[in-house]
């Protein structure tokens, strides 16, 4: 997994509640058996019109958000299916962090496992960042996992909390399976004990 420490980037405000995984990556793209190349399908039904042309009403198609790497969303982002294709497509498109008032559990887990940082801030703070991103072309923020804060060039916008273990794994880019396998003896002992009862 790629580590996440400090990231600065352009903010794209997609400030809507309940953005579900079917919107993030529609099912027709889940048939691929690779982990890569999903960015082209991100938000497909919103990004493209039914004849396959970029939809000019969708904000990611606006020039001021080109190259955006931080997404602002409404509450319950990533609700719906467990498809890890959702964080894969966000990352492949170029997003490194998502800021929202809340995330669906499975999505947040999947994101963390891939080095995409979900940042939970309260509703009014998220709304304020979205407003700045709408008002100021090229508006950038810094998401700092070392200090657990979000700031722009003028000020610290907010601090955030994150599970310390997840934070550690992200900062170091750890392979969680390798971590678990360090406890192989304990797993074997557990299995042996359960077999006896």
């Amino acid at each position: 997994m790629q580590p996440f420490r400090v990231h600065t980037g352009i903010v794209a405000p997609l400030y809507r509640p309940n953005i579900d995984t079917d919107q993030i990556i529609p099912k027709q793209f889940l048939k691929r058996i690779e982990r890569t190349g999903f960015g082209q399908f991100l938000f497909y039904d919103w990004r493209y019109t039914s004849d396959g042309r970029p939809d000019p009403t969708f904000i990611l198609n606006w020039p001021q958000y080109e190259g955006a790497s931080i997404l602002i969303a409404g509450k319950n982002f990533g609700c719906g299916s467990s498809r890890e294709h959702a964080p894969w497509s966000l990352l492949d498109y170029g997003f490194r962090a998502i800021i929202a008032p809340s995330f669906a559990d499975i999505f947040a887990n999947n994101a963390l496992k891939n080095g995409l940082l979900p940042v939970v801030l309260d509703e009014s703070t998220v709304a304020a960042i979205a407003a700045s991103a709408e008002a100021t072309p090229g508006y950038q923020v810094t998401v700092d996992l070392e200090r657990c804060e979000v700031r722009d060039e003028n000020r610290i916008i907010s601090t955030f909390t994150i599970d310390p273990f997840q934070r550690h794994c992200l900062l170091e880019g750890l392979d969680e399976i390798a971590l678990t396998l360090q406890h192989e003896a304990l797993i074997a002992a557990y299995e042996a004990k359960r077999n006896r009862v």
Partner: protein
Amino acid sequence: MPRTLLDKIWDEHVVYQPEDAPALLYIDLHLVHEVTSPQAFEGLRVAGRRVRRPDLTVATVDHNVPTADRHLPIADAIAAQQIATLRRNCREFGIRLFDMDSEYQGIVHVIGPELGLTQPGMTIVCGDSHTSTHGAFGALAFGIGTSEVEHVLATQCLPQRKPRTMAIRVNGKLPAGVSAKDLALGIIRTIGTDGATGYVIEYMGEAVRSLSMEGRMTLCNMSIEAGARAGMISPDDTTFSYLEGRPHAPRGAAWDAAIKRWQELASDEGAHFDRVVDIDARTLAPFVTWGTSPGQVVPVTDRVPDPAEAATEAERRAAERALQYMGLEPGTPIEEIEIDRVFIGSCTNARLEDLRAAAAVVRGYRVHPKVRAMVVPGSQQVKRAAEAERLDRIFREAGFEWRDPGCSMCLGMNADILQPGERCASTSNRNFEGRQGRGGRTHLVSPMMAAAAAIAGHFTDVRRWQFK
């Protein structure tokens, strides 16, 4: 100290609890399907790892499979490749697969219980959010992503923080015509689509106890639509009689011992829940969703709400968007909404009892001439059992299509999809934009309500249905 059902299952499965890090939780049953597994197996191969417990791992194909003309090769080349990939992976890693031609093939959350693989007290995972279904048996069952699928394949464990607990007590009895699906929708309406984020729900109370296993599965299935990681119901005689004699259920002395253990699986008197929600079953009605999120739902006797009355600005905007997508005007009576398609299927509502309930409504009627309706049984076993009762005849004679098992139009990964603008009464669990096909409009309802809508051509209150 009194413990909850979750506490009991959790404590039993902790392999290792480091200080300040998640517990390492042992997984008893890992279910696998074709869509969320290929990258996990590939990860194992790249790292040179094996599957630790192929004997605790079971695979089936459901999301991609065609529901008609199974004897022909799959027309969609990419879907065919994904299914072939699962086959190859199962062979290479020694995993049991219920393939397309198996008499036990079906939607993963339908076949686990009906094979008796799903048992009380277990920890169960699958790369699929509706794994919560299995909690109906008093198991801790939750959906995981592909990285975690790989983790479980390699280690049979998952690092997990213990979730918070929410008790949902459903008091009183469900009125006639109001099903487990309506109860699930009513709960989401009450607590919201993120109301249970971070929680495991334990459902309890008279209305829950009176549900059949099928009904309990429907209820637990939709826990995820309320944001919960899992839903669970403590096992009782209903659970035990469902399980007895199933292919993978214990037998003889092992069965008696299992029952003794399972009877312990109830929350103790006075056990602490982080949140308690009370619902009065008598106030519930058959529900119909009007929007693009399961929380956008009203009783069938209501009207499409006016976004201007939404509680917050964000909700107002979301409601306006939803109405525009759904092609609906505020104030329209739900019963006047005409439909084009009906889908009876999915891991929420495609078990035998669901098909019986729908067939009872359909018997003696014809599908409205403007409506195309299909029934997709949840598994081969459900299909055979329904045919043995001649339910297929009732559906077919009424003009329904009777198909082969799979996820089908629940998510439209195969050829079963809505055309843009088509409006569907669906027994599935998600009414997201485009879920059943780009531009398709999904209304979530119970099997009885879907059946009644198929006949009437519009939504209608099944509590007033003239059964023939």
